[in-house]
C-alpha cells in the first residue's frame, strides 16, 4: 500500500470534496476536511521519510511510463512542499471551525470546506507532479477555488479583490500555457525530466528563450513577484481569516516551488537560465520587492493589509535566493518557504482571532489590545519578532542563509536590501505593538475577552513552531540543503 501513497496524497482530498457536497452539513464537512488533511499530512511525512532514505520516488499514473503518461516525480523538494502544505492545513482546520462560522453564512459553510479541499488538492497536485501540463491543470483547480474562497470575505471589497485576482491569475495561467506550448513545440515532450534532457540540445532556439520568458512572467503573476503583485494585498486583506491564513502560508509558496522547479529542473541543464540575464532581473525585482513592499507596509492602517505587503517583501527574499543560482541561496529560499509559512500563518491567525472578537483589524482598533487580548497579542509580537528576524526565530535562520549566500556571491546590494528590509519590518511591527500596548483602550469600548481555545491553540502551535525550528534549525536546514543539491544535480 505504501507504494500507492503518492496517488493517495492528492486523490484523498479530491474524493473528499464531492463527499462534502453531498453531506451538506457544516460540521460534517468540517470533520471530513479535517480528517482528510490530517491523513494527508501523515502521507506527506511518510513520503518525505521514504525520499530521504531511498531517493526519488517515481509514480506513473495509470502505469503509463513517462513521457507518454503523467508521472509523479517526488524528490526532497516536493516532498518538503507536501509537508509544508499539509502541515499548515492541519493546523488551520481546527482554527477554521469557529472562524468560518463567524464569517460565513451557515448554509454555505459546507461548500466552503468543499472549496478548501479542492484548493488543498490543487496545491498538492502542483507540488507533486512531474508534468508541466498537469501542473497547469492543478494550478487552475487551486486558483479557481482560491478566487471563490477570497470572494467570501465579509467586506464587499473581497469581491473586487477576487475578481482582479481572477483576471490576473488567468492571464498568468495563459502565459504559462503559451510557454508550455512553445516548449512542447521544440521538444515534443511535456515531462519535466524528459524536457530537461532534451532542452540542452535546442537551447539556442529563440522559441525556447521566449518560452522561458513566458513561464517566468506567468508564474511571477501567481507568486506575486514585484511588480506583478497588485492582486495580493486586497485579496489577503479582505478574504475570510481562515482563507488568508491558508493561502498566505501555502498558495504563493507553491507558486514559488513551481518557479524553482521550472528553472532548476526543467531548464537546469540549459545555460540560458544560469548564465543569462534572467537571474539579474529577478534579483533586482526581488530587492525592489523587499524594500518597496516593506516601505508600503509601514503606511498601512489595516493590519491584515500590512501583513500582506510584508508577504510581498518576503516573497522577495525567496526570489532573491533563487536568483543567486547557488546551493546556499536556494537552500535559503527553500527553508524560508517553510519558515515564512509558519510565521505568517501564525500572524494571520492572530488577525483571525482579533477579527473574531473585535470585528475589524484597523490599527486604531488595536488600542489597548495588549491588555484586552493578551494571549493573542503576545502571539502577534512573538510572530513579529520572527518577521523581523530576531535570533531564536525561524526568520533569523532564513535571513542568516540568504545573507550568507549573498556574501558568497559578493552581492553587497542584496545584503543591504535584506538587512534594510528587516529594519523596515521593525518599524511596521512596532507601530502595531505601540498601539496595542502603550495606548489605553478606547473609552466606552466593550470588555473584550480572548478568542476561543480552538483558535488560540492552533495560533500558538504555529508561533511555537516558529521558535522551535528557529532554535533547532538543523532538521529543516538539512532538508533544505539536500533539496537544493537535488535541484542542482544533473537530471535523471
Amino acid at each position, binding site marked *: 500500500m505504501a507504494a500507492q501513497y503518492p496517488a493517495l496524497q492528492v486523490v484523498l482530498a479530491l474524493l473528499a470534496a464531492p463527499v462534502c457536497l453531498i453531506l451538506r452539513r457544516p460540521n460534517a464537512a468540517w470533520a471530513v476536511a479535517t480528517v482528510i488533511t490530517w491523513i494527508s499530512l501523515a502521507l506527506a511525512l511518510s513520503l518525505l521519510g521514504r525520499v530521504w532514505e531511498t531517493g526519488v520516488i517515481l509514480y506513473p499514473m495509470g502505469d503509463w511510463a513517462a513521457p507518454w503518461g503523467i508521472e509523479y516525480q517526488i524528490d526532497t523538494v516536493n516532498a518538503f512542499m507536501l509537508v509544508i502544505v499539509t502541515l499548515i492545513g492541519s493546523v488551520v482546520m481546527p482554527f477554521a471551525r469557529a472562524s468560518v462560522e463567524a464569517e460565513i453564512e451557515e448554509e454555505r459553510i459546507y461548500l466552503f470546506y468543499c472549496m478548501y479541499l479542492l484548493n488543498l488538492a490543487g496545491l498538492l497536485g502542483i507540488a507533486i507532479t512531474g508534468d508541466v*501540463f498537469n501542473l497547469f*491543470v492543478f494550478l*487552475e483547480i487551486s486558483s*479557481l477555488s482560491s*478566487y*471563490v474562497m477570497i*470572494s467570501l470575505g465579509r467586506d*464587499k*471589497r473581497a*469581491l*473586487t479583490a*477576487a*475578481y482582479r485576482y*481572477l*483576471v490576473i491569475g*488567468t*492571464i498568468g*495561467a*495563459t502565459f504559462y*500555457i*503559451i510557454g508550455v*506550448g512553445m516548449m*512542447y*513545440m521544440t521538444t515534443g515532450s*511535456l515531462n519535466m525530466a524528459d524536457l530537461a534532457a532534451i532542452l540542452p540540445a535546442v537551447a539556442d532556439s529563440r522559441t525556447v528563450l521566449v518560452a522561458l520568458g513566458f513561464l517566468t512572467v506567468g508564474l511571477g503573476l501567481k507568486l506575486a513577484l514585484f511588480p506583478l503583485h497588485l492582486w495580493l494585498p486586497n485579496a489577503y486583506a479582505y478574504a475570510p481569516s481562515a482563507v488568508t491564513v491558508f493561502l498566505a502560508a501555502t498558495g504563493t509558496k507553491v507558486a514559488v516551488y513551481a518557479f524553482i522547479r521550472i528553472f532548476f529542473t526543467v531548464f537546469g541543464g540549459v545555460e540560458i537560465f544560469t548564465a543569462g540575464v534572467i537571474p539579474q532581473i529577478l534579483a533586482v525585482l526581488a530587492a525592489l520587492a523587499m524594500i518597496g513592499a516593506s516601505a508600503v507596509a509601514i503606511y498601512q492602517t489595516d493590519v491584515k493589509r500590512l501583513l500582506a505587503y510584508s508577504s510581498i517583501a518576503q516573497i522577495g527574499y525567496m526570489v532573491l535566493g533563487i536568483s543567486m543560482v547557488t546551493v546556499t541561496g536556494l537552500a535559503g529560499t527553500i527553508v524560508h518557504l517553510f519558515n515564512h509559512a509558519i510565521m505568517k500563518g501564525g500572524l494571520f491567525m492572530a488577525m483571525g482571532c482579533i477579527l473574531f472578537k473585535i470585528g475589524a483589524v484597523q490599527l486604531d482598533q488595536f488600542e489597548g489590545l495588549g491588555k484586552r487580548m493578551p494571549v493573542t497579542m503576545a502571539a502577534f509580537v512573538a510572530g513579529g519578532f520572527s518577521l523581523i528576524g530576531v535570533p531564536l526565530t525561524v526568520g533569523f535562520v532564513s535571513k542568516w542563509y540568504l545573507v550568507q549566500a549573498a556574501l558568497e556571491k559578493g552581492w553587497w546590494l542584496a545584503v543591504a536590501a535584506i538587512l534594510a528590509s528587516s529594519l523596515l519590518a521593525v518599524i511596521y511591527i512596532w507601530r502595531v505593538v505601540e498601539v496595542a500596548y502603550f495606548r489605553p483602550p478606547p473609552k466606552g469600548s466593550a470588555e473584550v475577552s480572548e478568542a476561543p481555545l480552538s483558535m488560540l491553540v492552533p495560533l500558538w502551535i504555529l508561533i511555537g513552531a516558529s521558535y522551535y525550528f528557529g532554535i533547532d534549525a538543523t532538521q529543516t536546514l538539512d532538508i533544505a540543503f539536500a533539496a537544493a543539491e537535488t535541484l542542482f544535480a544533473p537530471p535523471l
Partner: protein
Amino acid sequence: MEFLGLLNYWIVVVLMMTGFYIVIAHNNLVKKIVGLNIFQVSVFVFYITMAKVKGGTAPILAEGIEIYSNPLPHVLILTAIVVGVATTALGLALVVRIHDAYGTIEDDEIEARENEL
C-alpha cells in the same frame, strides 16, 4: 518560403494580443472577461495549429491512412477549453455580485467607491 510557413503563427499572435489588450485596457468587467476568452481561444488556436501535419487527417485510426495530425495538443486543448469556461463562469458570477454591491461594473467607478470606504 519560410516566412510564409510562419504566417499562421503570426496571425495567432495578433489574435492573442487583441484579447490581451481588451483585458488590460478596458474598464468594463464583462468586457475584460470577454477579452480573457478571446485571449484563451487564440492560445487554443496556437496549439491546434502546431498539431497540424500537412496531408494528415484527424487522429482517428483507420485502415489505409498513414499520416495523422498530432493528437496530443488536441487533448491538452480539450482540457484547456473546459478550464476556460470554468473561469468564465466564476468571473461572471463575481461580476453579478459586484454589480449588486457597487451598482456598477466599470472598474474605475468601483475604485472610486472603494476609496471612499
